[in-house]
């Protein structure tokens, strides 16, 4: 029983990332009809927003400490971040310690800007082209973005820490009456799950309870009619692209303490997130979220040693197997609209 609970919890954080990325993908596909293969790169850029802010906060000047020596026996050079000079060392340390959550504030405008530039600068020229063309151009864009990040930050993963208040793990087993240490779960992964729920709720509330959201939903259902009513739906869809980019970026920012950012991390998530979108139902926002969590948990269960021993390699292919079955049995996905992808 403990193992099952632990695998569910482990699946939740991965599922949260899948759900957030798939949510953005679905928003873009539902509004603009574009299959955006650069969406994983937006997740990666979000993660590097956290790295960038962390480095900016650590920007330092060198002080030579004559009382200590370095590994070569020379007087030791100590780097002192400027933020210590401005805020005092205790507060400066605290700000650096909290750089990942603080990066949310930094990432939101950056990601919206990147999203809008991507949509206006490139993707809008491919609205009337085939999905194959859209896939090619967005995939090419993803590679360009990856290489830019690689040129600036190098190829190696960059370790990022959670704030020290969230270092350590939570004994979930004790809470539900199991033995001590039987179900241990890191605090930050709980934070990530909670954060993703807040973001998902915010996106749904925005679409459901605001006039802007109502127009976007109407545009998703019947773009032409909304246009005939004199509403500039293109402008709203551009903003939606920016919001989708921000959602992917925030997913990346908060994932950095779980997985050290590297230039290729978006590709790993992109392919799985597309499977999530297909399983959830193309264009269905609730479907994307549901499928994200379901497949994350399923992947976690498939990695249990008893499962892998029974069916070797199942953990690597389980998501694709499920996608194949869903496409065969219910081509429109779990919550897709009737008729979509069924011809």
């Amino acid at each position, binding site marked *: 029983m*403990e*193992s099952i609970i*632990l*695998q569910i919890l*482990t*699946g939740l*954080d*991965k599922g949260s990332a899948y759900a957030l990325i798939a949510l953005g993908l679905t928003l873009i596909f539902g509004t603009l009809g574009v299959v955006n293969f650069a969406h994983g790169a937006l997740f990666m850029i979000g993660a590097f927003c956290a790295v960038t802010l962390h480095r900016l906060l650590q920007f330092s000047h060198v002080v030579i400490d004559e009382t*200590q020596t*370095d*590994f*070569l026996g020379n007087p*030791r050079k100590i780097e002192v971040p400027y933020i210590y000079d401005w805020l005092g060392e205790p507060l400066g340390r605290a700000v650096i310690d909290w750089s990942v959550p603080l990066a949310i504030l930094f990432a939101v405008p950056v990601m919206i800007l990147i999203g809008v530039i991507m949509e206006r600068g490139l993707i809008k020229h491919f609205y009337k082209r085939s999905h194959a063309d859209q896939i090619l151009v967005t995939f090419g864009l993803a590679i360009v973005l990856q290489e830019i990040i*690689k040129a600036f930050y*190098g*190829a*190696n*993963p960059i*370790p990022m*820490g959670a704030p020290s208040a969230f270092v*350590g*793990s939570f*004994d979930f087993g004790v809470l539900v009456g199991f033995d001590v*240490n*039987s179900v*241990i*779960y*890191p605090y*930050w*992964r709980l934070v990530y799950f909670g954060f993703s729920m807040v973001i998902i709720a915010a996106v749904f509330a925005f679409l459901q309870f605001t006039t802007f959201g109502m127009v976007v939903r109407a545009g998703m259902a019947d773009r032409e009619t909304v246009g005939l009513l004199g509403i500039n739906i293109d402008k709203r869809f551009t903003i939606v692209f920016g919001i989708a980019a921000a959602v992917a970026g925030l997913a990346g920012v908060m994932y950095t303490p*779980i*997985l*050290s950012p590297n230039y290729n*991390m978006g590709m*790993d998530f992109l392919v799985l997130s597309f499977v999530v979108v297909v399983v959830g139902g193309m264009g269905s926002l609730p479907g994307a979220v549901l499928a994200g969590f379901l497949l994350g948990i399923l*992947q*976690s269960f498939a*990695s*249990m*040693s008893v499962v*892998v021993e029974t069916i070797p390699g199942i*953990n*690597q292919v389980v998501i694709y197997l499920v996608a194949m079955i869903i496409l065969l049995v219910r081509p429109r996905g779990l919550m897709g609209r009737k008729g979509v992808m069924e011809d």
Partner: protein
Amino acid sequence: MSKSNFTRRGLMKTGAATGAGLAMPTIFTGAVWSAAHSGFTNAPQGDTVTFGFNVPQTGAYADEGLDELRAFELAVEHLNGQGDGGMLQTFSEKNLDGTGLLGKRVTFVSGDTQTNSDAARASARSMIEKDGAIMISGGSSSGVAIAVQGLCQDAGVIFMAGLTHSNDTTGKDRRANGFRHFFNTEMSGRALAPILEANYGKDRKAYHLTADYTWGWSQEKSMRTYTEALGWETVNTVLTPVGAGDFSSYITPVAQSGADVLVLNHYGGDMVNSLTQAVQFGLRSLQANGKDFTIVVPLYSELMARGAGANIKGIFGSQNWDWKIENVLGDRYTGTNAFVQSFGTKYGFPPSQAAQTCYAQAILYADAVTRAGSFNPCAVAEALEGFEFNGLGNGPTLYRAEDHQCFKDVVVVKGKENPENEFDLVEIVDITPRDTATYPVDHPDFQGGSLGTCNPGA
């Protein structure tokens, strides 16, 4: 009136004979030179000779690869007489005088293996065929090393392996053109077992997470052999993909497995991630079977320790070399301080064991060329076989002729509890002498292959 005996025919005969006589020494020495310096792949022409450095610059082992490249650059500088000379000053052989190799200036080309066998072979092939590399060195993955070693054997160039730790590199996949300075998983098992017994006892249950390729399999086998001989029980072994990133789904079952030791047969970025996540999931604070749960990392490095940060504290592992070894254990490891001084001055931080092994391999190759008096790979191989040397930081070392494996002391280390600076992360706790680390040529884990014959190529 005098009469001259010179005729046009006589003059031509005399001229030809004189010319041939004057040219004789040149023709003679030229023939010898030609024999020694042709008839093999990429025989150097002109006044330069090109080395090919094939290292991972991307992927899970990129940190090690970039440090290897730094060391290679330094070695080339020292061979050409630039810089402070590094370990050339301490090396037991004195053939290298900083004037290049056999009168030629050493240049190099580099490639990115991407920690991928196919990419590594393509990169090595390009350096041999397009750039004319006389030798290939580098690599931070045994899968890559074995693949490139096979390519070099076929192409007729020497392969001086970099960081490759699988038994197979000088075991079932050994080749006559391939040489390994780095130690292997058998040596790690021999070195670690007594330390694990002394610190954790004989009654332990181990769970292995293993990188799913030749090195991981080899490391797991060696660790199982030596820990099971102590009396430890192996509860489970799970293979994990290289570069998995998130190991949480592999780590979560460990706590319920009944194990009280987790052996992480991971390296580089994979080890940093798996160890960090194991600590995040509370494994090091667990009590299992009435004992403190513990983690072992059989193959260690300072670079990984830097990536893992505080999570590495108190964890045992083994290394081929450590930059502090001469300061801690004295003159036996001479060469270490000279290399650290040289590398640290150029790059601002101490070298990793990957850097040291690659620097040593470049120097050993160059020395073998000088002793052989030729770049012919078969002459170089003959010079390396059975070669005893010292002064490259590892103490007295033998390049065993039968398998092209170096035998030297093995360093047992532990993550330092209270580091004094950002480079002081690893503490040397023991040395396994070369005699103890040496295994017989017919060891069962190294069977199934043979060196074959040296291939000079063209």
